[in-house]
C-alpha cells in the first residue's frame, strides 16, 4: 500500500475508482442498516415517557458522537504511527479519518442542539460534553487547516501528524476542565436524560451505533483511496511533466 507508484510507466496500475468488492458489500449492508435504523427509530420504537418523540433524535445523536470520537482516535493513532513509521499509509488514514470526524462532530452538535431545544428549553447548554465536543470540532478544523497548507508530501505529513497528536492530547484536558468547571454549578446534564433505556429502544440505539460505525468504515475506505490517488497524482504528475519535457528536448528518459 505504501510503495511509491510515481513513475509514468506504472501509473496505469493505479485504479481509476475507489470501490472494491469489499467496499461495495459494506456499502450495501450499511445502506440497508440505515433504512432499518430509520424504521426502528421512527416507527417501531415507542416514544419516550418523559420526552415524547423528541427522544428519537438519540438514535442519530449518540451514534454520531461515538463515531466522531472514534474518528479522532483513529486520526491520533495514525498521527502517532506516522511519526514512528513514516509511512504514507498512516498519513492518509489520519487525513481521511479527520475529515469524517469533522462531519460527524458537526452532526453531533446539530442533533444535540435540536434535542436540547425541546428537553432543556434552549439550543445550547454549557453541558460539559457539548462544550468539549464544540472545542474538539475547532481543534480538528485547525488540524485540517494544517493539512490544507500546500507543502511537499513529507513535510505536510509530518506537520499534520504533530498537529493531530497535540490536538488529541488536549481533548481529555479540555473535557476534564470543562467538566470540573460546570460541575461546580450543576450536575452533568446528559445523565438526567433517559436514565435507563431498555428493550426495543436499546436495540435501536445499538443498531444505530453499529450501522454508523459501518458507515464510518465505508467512508474511511473511500476517502483513504481518494487521498492516496490525489497524492500519487501530485507526485506522478510532476514526474510525468518532467519526462515529457525531456522527451521534447530529445534527452533520453
Amino acid at each position, binding site marked *: 500500500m505504501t510503495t511509491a507508484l510515481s513513475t509514468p510507466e506504472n501509473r496505469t496500475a493505479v485504479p481509476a475508482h475507489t470501490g472494491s468488492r469489499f467496499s461495495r458489500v459494506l456499502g450495501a449492508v450499511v445502506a440497508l442498516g440505515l433504512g432499518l435504523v430509520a424504521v426502528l427509530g421512527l416507527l417501531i420504537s415507542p416514544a419516550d415517557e418523559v420526552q415524547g418523540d423528541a427522544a428519537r433524535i438519540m438514535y442519530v445523536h449518540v451514534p454520531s458522537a461515538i463515531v466522531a470520537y472514534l474518528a479522532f482516535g483513529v486520526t491520533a493513532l495514525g498521527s502517532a504511527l506516522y*511519526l514512528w513509521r513514516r509511512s504514507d499509509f498512516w498519513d492518509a488514514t489520519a487525513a481521511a479519518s479527520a475529515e469524517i470526524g469533522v462531519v460527524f462532530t458537526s452532526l453531533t452538535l446539530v442533533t444535540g442542539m435540536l434535542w436540547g431545544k425541546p428537553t432543556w428549553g434552549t439550543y445550547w447548554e454549557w453541558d460539559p460534553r457539548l462544550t468539549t465536543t464544540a*472545542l474538539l470540532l*475547532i*481543534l480538528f*478544523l*485547525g488540524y485540517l*487547516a*494544517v493539512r490544507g*497548507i500546500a*507543502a511537499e508530501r513529507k*513535510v505536510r505529513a*509530518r*506537520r499534520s*501528524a*504533530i*498537529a493531530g*497528536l*497535540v*490536538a488529541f*492530547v*488536549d481533548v481529555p*484536558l*479540555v473535557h*476534564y*476542565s*470543562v467538566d*470540573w*468547571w460546570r460541575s*461546580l454549578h450543576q450536575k452533568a446534564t446528559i445523565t438526567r436524560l433517559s436514565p435507563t433505556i431498555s428493550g426495543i429502544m436499546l436495540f435501536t440505539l445499538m443498531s444505530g451505533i453499529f450501522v454508523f460505525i459501518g458507515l464510518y468504515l465505508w467512508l474511511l475506505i473511500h476517502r483513504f483511496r481518494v487521498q492516496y490517488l490525489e497524492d500519487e497524482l501530485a507526485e506522478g504528475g510532476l514526474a510525468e511533466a518532467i519526462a515529457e519535457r525531456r522527451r521534447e528536448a530529445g534527452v533520453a528518459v
Partner: protein
Amino acid sequence: MWRDARLVAGKDLRVEWRSRVALNQIVPFAIVVLLLFAFALDPDRGFLRRAAPGLYWVAVLLSALVVIQRSFAAETVDGGRDGLRVIGLDPAAIFLGKALAASAVLLLLEVVLAAGVMLLYGADFGSAFILVVVTCLLATAGVVAPGMIYGALASGVRVRETLLPLLFLPAVAPVMIGATRSFEAAINHSPAEGWRWCGLLGVFAVAYTALGLAVFEPLLEDS
C-alpha cells in the same frame, strides 16, 4: 541541554531587549485590550470587578498570541531557523530556551496586566498572593508550551497569521478555565478551591512541555 537552552533563551531575550518591541508595542496592546473590555461592559465598577479574572486571562491569552508570533518571526527572517539547526543545538533545548524567553516576556506582561486590572477594574488579588503567583507561573508554562509547538508549526507558512490563533486559542481553553477559576477563588477568599485548579494547570503545563520536548525535533525538520 541546559546550556543550549540558556543560550537560546539569552539570544531571544537579547533580541527582545534591543528591539524593545515587547515594551513599546505589546504592553500598550495589552492595556488597550483592558480598556476595550471596559468600553464593552459599561464601566460600572461592580460588574468589571466581578468579571476581572476572566477578562485578565483573555487579555493574557491575546498578548501571548502576539508574544509567540514575535518569538518565531525572529527565526523566520534571514533563515534564522535553518541557522539554529545548522549550529547543531539540541531541538529539545531550542524548545526549552524559546519557551523560557517567551515565558519571561509573558510574565512581565502579566504583572503589568495585573496592575492594570487592580487599578482600572478595582479587583483585589492581594488576599491570596501566593496562590495568584503560583497560578500565573503554572498558567504561563501551560500557555507558552503549546504556543511554542504551534508557533513552530505555523512559522514559515504563508497563512501563519491566521493559522496560529486557530490552533493555539482552542488548545489553551483548559488554561483559561483553570487560571480564571483560581483567580476567582483568590478574590473570593477561598484559596483551597484555587489550589485544586492549580493542580489542573500543573498537569497541563507538564503534558505540553513533555510533548514539546518530544516533537520539536520533527517540527524543525521542516524547511
